[in-house]
């Protein structure tokens, strides 16, 4: 008999009981449906140990890497500490150290911490205002000694949180930051694989982190970044990306504009169309798609149909909540 610990409470797991069986028996609130490992509703995370292999069958690499598993398929082999998706989040206070504009409506926000902040480049956090208003933002840098997180914040007209960050936040202010989340990030494996990165607007934030991470791990395969927006004034970091491309023979950068005018060196058209037209076959490519939800969903389907395996497609749709 093993002990399951969830949010400080301890439950006994009897022989032949799955983690889900125990949680249901104890009336712990967790959504589930098929109990066959198919629907992935009961995805939870092991905080300390690696969960049993069969409980991770069919999950994405980046989820497996973070010890996520399916409660209905998990028959514990030892005591486990489990984190549920709806469990209250742990927030840390950080201090704003940079707030400058990257272009007319995108701000570079840097938040510093006293201790190291562990994350994978490309993950996101929730930022919280003192009144409780909370929004997700992607981390744009890679883990490093300086204990900082970098964000690219686009001002949405009338947007509550983004306007607050743009208009009111000052250097030295403190802000609450959640633990890192999400599974759209680079794992240093299959170094010869081609990487296709496609983003709109501040979708460049997670992609910049992923790109830097891949390059510093010495990724050997070709890396193509397509960054798009409507107008030239809404792109950013163009020079930096061009410089990176000049320094790394395997990195290729293509800024795309769906509106007019389209200066030399830029592709005309929507970033997803431009990217797709570059490749006749994406078999064995690893794909990262970030930004506008419609672009992300459409590209997910198109890259899959062009041969990419679903397990190799990582996405972050920047869903704007309407609350």
């Amino acid at each position: 008999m093993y002990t399951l610990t969830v949010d400080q409470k301890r439950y006994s797991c009897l022989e032949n009981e799955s983690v889900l069986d125990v949680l249901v028996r104890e009336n712990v609130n967790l959504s589930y449906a098929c109990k066959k490992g198919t629907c992935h509703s009961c995805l939870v995370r092991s905080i300390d140990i690696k969960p049993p292999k069969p409980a991770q069958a069919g999950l994405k690499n980046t989820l497996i890497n973070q010890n996520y598993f399916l409660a209905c398929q998990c028959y514990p082999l030892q005591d486990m500490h489990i984190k549920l998706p709806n469990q209250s989040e742990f927030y840390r206070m950080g201090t704003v150290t940079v707030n400058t504009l990257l272009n007319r409506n995108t701000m570079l926000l840097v938040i510093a911490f006293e201790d190291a902040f562990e994350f994978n480049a490309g993950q996101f956090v929730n930022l919280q205002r003192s009144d409780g208003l909370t929004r997700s933002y992607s981390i744009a840098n890679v883990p490093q000694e300086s204990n900082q997180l970098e964000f690219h914040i686009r001002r949405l007209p009338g947007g509550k949180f983004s306007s607050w960050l743009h208009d009111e936040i000052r250097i030295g202010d403190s802000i609450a930051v959640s633990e890192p989340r999400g599974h759209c990030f680079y794992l240093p494996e299959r170094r010869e694989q081609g990487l296709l990165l496609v983003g709109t607007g501040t979708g460049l934030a997670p992609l910049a982190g992923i790109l830097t991470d891949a390059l510093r791990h010495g990724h050997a395969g070709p890396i193509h970044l397509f960054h798009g927006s409507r107008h030239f004034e809404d792109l950013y970091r163009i020079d930096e990306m061009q410089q990176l491309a000049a320094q790394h023979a395997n990195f290729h950068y293509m800024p795309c504009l769906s509106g007019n005018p389209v200066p030399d060196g830029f592709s005309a058209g929507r970033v997803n169309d431009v990217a797709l037209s570059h490749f006749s076959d994406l078999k064995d490519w690893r794909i990262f798609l970030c930004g506008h939800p419609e672009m992300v969903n459409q590209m997910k389907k198109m890259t899959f149909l062009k041969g990419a395996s679903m397990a190799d497609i990582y996405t972050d749709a920047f869903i704007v909540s309407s609350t």
Partner: protein
Amino acid sequence: MSATLYERIGGEAAVNAAVELFYRKVLNDYRINRFFNNTDMDTQLAKQKAFFTMAFGGPNNYTGQDMRNAHARLVKMGLAEEHFNAVMEHLGATMVELNVPADLIAEAAAIAESTRKDVLGK
């Protein structure tokens, strides 16, 4: 000979090989892709895996009633014989593409065929 069809066909590895080939065919087929369009693709793919495990006679505990429930929403959308036939076509073509021997294809097709009434809610 006591090995199950699932074992002879190659088990989970065979399912994994089949499921993406199959799903690409389904998404490209204008006759049926509307049934598959409104759900998340990762979830959808996991369900196709369940479909193959079942067709290959593998370990699953779906009952006829489960099949009715799983497809009831689709029957409301107009799921009918011709759509079932299209899925059978892609199932066969996928296995041919993977060089599954003809007798095993026939066995798998028979299993899938046996769910017709339940899937179509008849």
